[in-house]
């Protein structure tokens, strides 16, 4: 277990009708750590992430933030504590340009109007601060590459001072070079003291950036916060496929 957990999810269960998506799952995220969350399709990774980001509510179990119990009824509740999610489908609006996406629902301006010029300036600043290179912030995001789109989603989380960033398959649609860019960005965020949950299918990706690994198998946690140095790709593969080490 990490010494200084920022998030502890304890005994989380969630069902969708007759389907048990999660059963008594535990998950811990250390401060300033990158925690890998792995498992086969349908293992419950995305469901767990959605619970942590307030999109779904658990049937049972509790979430501790800095040791204190919290209840997230909506993504806004989670965001208030600095938890930002970057979903598999990116949660970007393809037709909106870069700065409109970054400030979506939290636009700079008054109650009615938006201040486009301030939004443009702030977007340029945040992209520069984390070394993201996007040709034009006026561009609709559908015309950006997968890596650039991912960067926009990360920049959005960063701008709103996310302390915990949840990344659901951020490299699933990316090539090798673009994936590397995202890993560099993750390490950069870690250096700045941010904590990251990294959900992926790709074990090589996990081992290149994470500090600890939690494995889900058919909705249960079969390995919790294993330090990366004390395990191997083969062990994790077995846990994913069979739920045990052998």
């Amino acid at each position, binding site marked *: 277990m990490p010494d200084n957990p920022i998030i502890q999810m304890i005994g989380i269960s969630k069902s969708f009708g007759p389907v048990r998506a999660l059963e008594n799952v535990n998950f811990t995220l250390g401060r300033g750590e990158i925690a890998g969350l792995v498992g086969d399709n349908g293992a419950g990774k995305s469901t767990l992430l959605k619970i942590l980001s307030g999109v779904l509510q658990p049937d049972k179990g509790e979430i501790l933030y800095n040791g204190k119990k919290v209840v997230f009824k909506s993504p806004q509740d989670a965001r208030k504590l600095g938890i930002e999610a970057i979903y598999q489908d990116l949660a970007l*609006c393809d037709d909106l340009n870069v700065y*409109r996406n970054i400030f979506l*629902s939290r636009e700079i301006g008054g109650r009615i109007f938006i201040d486009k010029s301030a939004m443009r300036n702030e977007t340029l600043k945040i992209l520069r601060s984390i070394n993201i290179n996007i040709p034009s912030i006026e561009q609709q995001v559908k015309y950006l590459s997968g890596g650039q789109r991912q960067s926009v989603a990360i920049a959005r989380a960063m701008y709103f001072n996310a302390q915990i960033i949840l990344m659901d398959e951020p490299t699933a649609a990316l090539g090798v070079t673009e994936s590397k860019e995202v890993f560099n960005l993750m390490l950069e965020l870690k250096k700045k003291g941010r904590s990251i949950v990294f959900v992926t299918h790709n074990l090589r990706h996990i081992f290149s950036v994470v500090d600890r690994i939690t494995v889900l198998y058919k909705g249960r946690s079969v390995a919790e916060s294993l330090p990366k140095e004390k395990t191997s790709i083969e062990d994790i593969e077995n846990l994913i496929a069979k739920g045990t080490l052998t």
Partner: protein
Amino acid sequence: MNAKSIWNIREIGILIATIVLGAFFTALNPLFFSLANIFTLLRMTAMLGLVAIPMALLLISGEFDLSVGSIYALAPSVVCVLVNGFGINIWLATVIALVVAAACGLINAFLVTKLHIVSFIATLGTMYIFRSVVLQMTNGMPQAITSDPIYYLLGGDVQNFSTTVVWLALFTTVFWIILENTKHGNWSMAAGSNVQAATIMGINVNRVKAINFILSAVFAGFTGILGLSWMSSVSPSQGGGLEFSSIAAAVIGGVSLKGGTGSIVGTLIGSLLLSMIQNGLILIGAGFYVYQGFVGAIVIIATILNLRIIRGRAYA
């Protein structure tokens, strides 16, 4: 302004098409460019644009409203029935008629956002229902009001210049500001572009769409009332086909039927283009019957051109 910045104007394609078409009609019949005809064209554009522009905002947020033509007949009919049947003051009757139009929009919004009926189907249903209300209310007969000089100013002519053009200029500006510079505009684009993403980001998508349904209905009703003010009468069948011409004006102007993107100025030019076709074909002697075929062709061509221009610009 250099060539590149002109190319970057989103509405450049439709603007060029409109100018070319105007030149074509003028070449065949110089009367097309006469002051009297320009005034006529402006009125036609205003009557279409005032319905098409709120429709554009609704389309951008990812929904249709096929009931606008019926509401365009319903609101002025309500005014006539209230004035003639109940002796209510015409201005109060007008306010009540606009509230009725807003209620029609609310019904559409309820069907789509709460009962989850696809808007194409929901508003197809209400299109028939609202039209039936008009026919029952008027017994299928045209209604008239006594001419009132001040009420006439609402949508009538001053020195042959239609006051509807002033309304069009005002509300084009208002809707342009809404779409480009307000949170509601941003959320409308987001709702039409990716409902899931907009919801996850905390936008109340149903509220955004409901506002746009209500705006669409109120402006359809308001435009119908402008017609009543001008003509002092209303036909229960008026506005038939307005749903499609207003959608066509928006699409020609660059609004995506999938939602998420579009232009208010483009929709204004789209309304002008459609009005020019309707007016120009008659002036050159081609007759009204070819109008629909022409509009169909223009919708298809404009959509292809818009897509090519947007893609070309994006990959440039």
